[in-house]
C-alpha cells in the first residue's frame, strides 16, 4: 500500500462526538463499503455528504445519481461489480426505491439502504422526525420476500448496526435496510470507534467450483447460493424474472415455488441469528413498553420514572424490526398484564405486537403522528392513567 493511502483509514478509531448520520456512514466505511450511489434528501443528506468526502480518500466511489431509482439500481450494479455498496435516503426516496429493492431480493444482491425517517405521507415533514416507514420496509416492494431491517437507538448503535447491516447483506445475500429517524440522524453524542481489528466483517460466500460447473443460483444447504460477480469468468446470468439454478428465466409454477420459498426461507430459518432485542428491567415487570429507534430512549426514561413511582415497568427495545420478534413478544405477553407501544405513526408496530400476543395480554398503542418524539412524561402519564 502506498504511503498516500495509509494517510486515510477505513476505520476512524477513537472517541468522537458526532451525529447518527455520520456514525452510520463511518460504520459503512469501517466494514468496507466502497460505493455509494445516492440522491440528496432531508434528513439523510449528511450521510451522502460524508461519503462524498471520505470514499474517494479510501479508493472508493461516490456517485450522486439523478434520482433514488438510479441510486438503488446503481448500487445493485456496483454490488455485482464486486464491491460493498450502499445508498441513503428518507421516506419519499425509499418509496421510489422499492421496485428495485425487489430486484435486489429476487437477484439476491447484497447492499445496504439507510432510511432516515421523517414525517409523512408524501413530502410531509422533511426536517422533522417520523417512524412511518416500518411497513414500507416490509411490504413496499411487490411479491413475497423477507427483508432484514435494523433500527438503532443511539449514535453508537448507528455505527454498529451499519456494520451489521452490511454483514447480514453479505451473509444472506439481500438488500438490508438500516432504519434511522430524524432525531437519531441529527443528534450528536459520543461515538467510540474501536480498533480496526475489532470490526467483525462478513464477506459474501464465493463459489468453489469452476465456471463450467457453476450454477449461480444453486444454493448450499443453508439456502444461500455462493456469489460469483462480474469479471470472475463465471459469466453470471442475473434476471429479475423467475429463474432456475442456472439463473435462466424459467416461467413456471415449479421454478417460482422453489425460488420464492428459498429466498424467504433463508431468512425465516435464520431468525435466531438475525433478531436482536434489548431487554431493560423486564425481569419483574408487570407492564411492558415495546419501542424502537429514538422513541425507545424516551421509553427508557418512562421506565426509570415509573420505577421511582413504584410501578413495575420494563422495556423491550426492538433492534431488529424485520423479521419481527414475534416469539419473544408472545413470551412477554404471558408475563405482563399490558403492553404499551409508543411509536411515531398511527399504529404500525402496534398491530404487529397485537398479532404476536395472540390475545394473551392487552396491547395499547401510544401514537404521535410525526414531528416530535414522545417525551418520557407522556408515556408515563398513559401508563399511570390506566393503573
Amino acid at each position, binding site marked *: 500500500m502506498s504511503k*498516500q*493511502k495509509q*494517510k*486515510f483509514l477505513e476505520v476512524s478509531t477513537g472517541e468522537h462526538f458526532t451525529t447518527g448520520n455520520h456514525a452510520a456512514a463511518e460504520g459503512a466505511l469501517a466494514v468496507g463499503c*466502497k*460505493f455509494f*450511489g445516492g440522491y440528496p434528501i432531508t434528513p439523510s443528506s449528511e450521510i451522502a455528504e460524508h461519503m462524498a*468526502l471520505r470514499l*474517494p*480518500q479510501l*479508493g472508493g*466511489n461516490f*456517485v450522486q*445519481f*439523478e*434520482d433514488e*431509482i*438510479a*441510486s438503488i*439500481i*446503481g*448500487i*445493485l*450494479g*456496483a*454490488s*455485482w*461489480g*464486486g*464491491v460493498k*455498496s450502499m445508498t441513503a435516503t428518507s421516506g419519499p426516496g425509499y418509496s421510489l426505491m422499492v*421496485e*428495485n429493492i425487489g*430486484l435486489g431480493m429476487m437477484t439476491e444482491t447484497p447492499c445496504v439502504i439507510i432510511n432516515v425517517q421523517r414525517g409523512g405521507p408524501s413530502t410531509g415533514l422533511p426536517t422533522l422526525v417520523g417512524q412511518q416507514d416500518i411497513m414500507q420496509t416490509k411490504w413496499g416492494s411487490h411479491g413475497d420476500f423477507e427483508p432484514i431491517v435494523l433500527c438503532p437507538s443511539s449514535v453508537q448503535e448507528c455505527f454498529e448496526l451499519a456494520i451489521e447491516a452490511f454483514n447480514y447483506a453479505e451473509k444472506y445475500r439481500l438488500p438490508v435496510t438500516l432504519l434511522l429517524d430524524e432525531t437519531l440522524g441529527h443528534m450528536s453524542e459520543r461515538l467510540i470507534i474501536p480498533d480496526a481489528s475489532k470490526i467483525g466483517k462478513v464477506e459474501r460466500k464465493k463459489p468453489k467450483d469452476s465456471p463450467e460447473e457453476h450454477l449461480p443460483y444453486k444454493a448450499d444447504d443453508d439456502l444461500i447460493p455462493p456469489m460469483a460477480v*462480474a*469479471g*470472475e*469468468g*463465471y*459469466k*453470471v*446470468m*442475473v*434476471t*429479475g*424474472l423467475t429463474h432456475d439454478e*442456472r439463473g*435462466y*428465466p424459467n416461467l413456471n409454477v415449479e421454478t417460482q415455488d422453489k425460488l420464492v420459498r428459498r429466498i424467504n426461507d433463508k431468512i425465516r430459518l435464520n431468525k435466531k441469528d438475525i433478531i436482536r432485542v434489548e431487554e431493560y428491567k423486564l425481569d419483574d415487570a408487570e407492564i411492558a413498553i415495546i419501542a424502537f429507534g429514538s422513541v425507545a430512549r424516551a421509553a427508557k426514561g418512562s421506565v426509570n420514572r415509573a420505577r421511582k413511582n413504584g410501578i413495575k415497568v420494563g422495556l423491550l427495545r426492538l433492534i431488529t424490526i424485520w423479521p419481527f420478534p414475534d416469539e419473544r413478544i408472545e413470551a412477554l405477553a404471558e408475563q405482563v398484564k399490558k403492553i404499551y407501544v409508543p411509536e411515531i405513526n398511527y399504529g404500525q408496530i402496534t398491530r404487529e405486537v397485537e398479532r404476536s400476543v395472540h390475545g394473551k395480554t392487552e396491547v395499547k398503542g401510544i401514537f404521535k403522528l410525526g414531528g416530535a418524539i414522545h417525551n418520557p412524561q407522556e408515556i408515563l402519564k398513559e401508563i399511570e392513567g390506566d393503573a
Partner: protein
Amino acid sequence: MTEDQKELLESEAHPLDGFLREGRIPHIFCPACSLGSITNVLIEAINESGIDPKKIAVVSGIGCTGRIAGYLNFDSFHTTHGRSIPFAIGLSVTDPERKVIVVSGDGDLFAIGGNHFIHAARRNANITVICVNNFNYGMTGGQAGPTTYAGQFQTTAPYGSLEEPFNIPNLAASCGAVYVARYTALDVRRVKEAFSEAIAKNGFSFVEVLGSCPTTYGRRNQLAEGKKILEFFAEKTVLNHDADTRDVRIDKDSPIIVGKFVDIEDKPTLTDNLLALQRVSQAKKG
C-alpha cells in the same frame, strides 16, 4: 471458399458457439424480427474487439430487446424496466477495465428510462448504449411509445399517434455522448461497424438501430409481411454522416437519415473523473 470455411460448413460447429448461452435457444423473437441479426452482429463486434470476455458485461432493461442480454454468454444482467443504465454505471465504475454494454429498446431507454439516459450521457459514463428502436412496445402487444411518430397506429394510438417522437440521436448528442450513430437493421455491415466503434470508444457511446417489428408495429401500419419493414427502410434511408442531429427526426413521410453523427475524442469519462477525484482527495492533508 477457403479450407477453413469449408470445414466449418461441413461441421456441426457454428461460428458463434460459445457466445450464446447453452440451453437458452430458441430465442423468443418473432419471425422477421431483426433482433436475431442484431444479436449476431453484436457478438461479432464484441468478439472482434479483442476485449477479454471476462471484462465484458451486458445489461438490459425490460422488453424484447432487453432479452438479448440473457442470450449472450457474458456476465449478463436483465434488470427492471428502464433501469439498465444506472445498473451499468454501478458495474462500470467498480472496474475501470470493464466494458459495459447496454442493449435495450426505445420504450425502455427513452420513456421510463429517459432520465437515466440523459444523465449518463451528461456524465459521460463509460458505457456503450445500443437502442433497438422498433417504434412501439413490442413485447406487451404494440402500444405507442416515445418513438412512435405522428400518424402511426398502435394499440394505444388507435386513431393514429399525434405526438412528436424523440429525435434520439439529437438527444444523445445534445446531452454529451461522444459517439452517436444510427443505422437500420437492414444495413448489418454498418450496424456492426458502428457497434465496433462504439465498443472501442471511451465514454458514453450510443448506437440507434432502427429495427423491424412486423408483429406489433408492421401489422398496424401496412408493413406486416416478411421483409416489408426492411424494404420500407431501404426506400426511405439516406446516408449522411455530416447531418446535423437536429435534422434527423423521424416522421411518416420524410427520408430517414442515417450515419455516424458524432465521434469525439478524449473527453474525460465518469470513471476518469472518479479516479481523478480519488487522487485529489488523497493528496489533501489527512
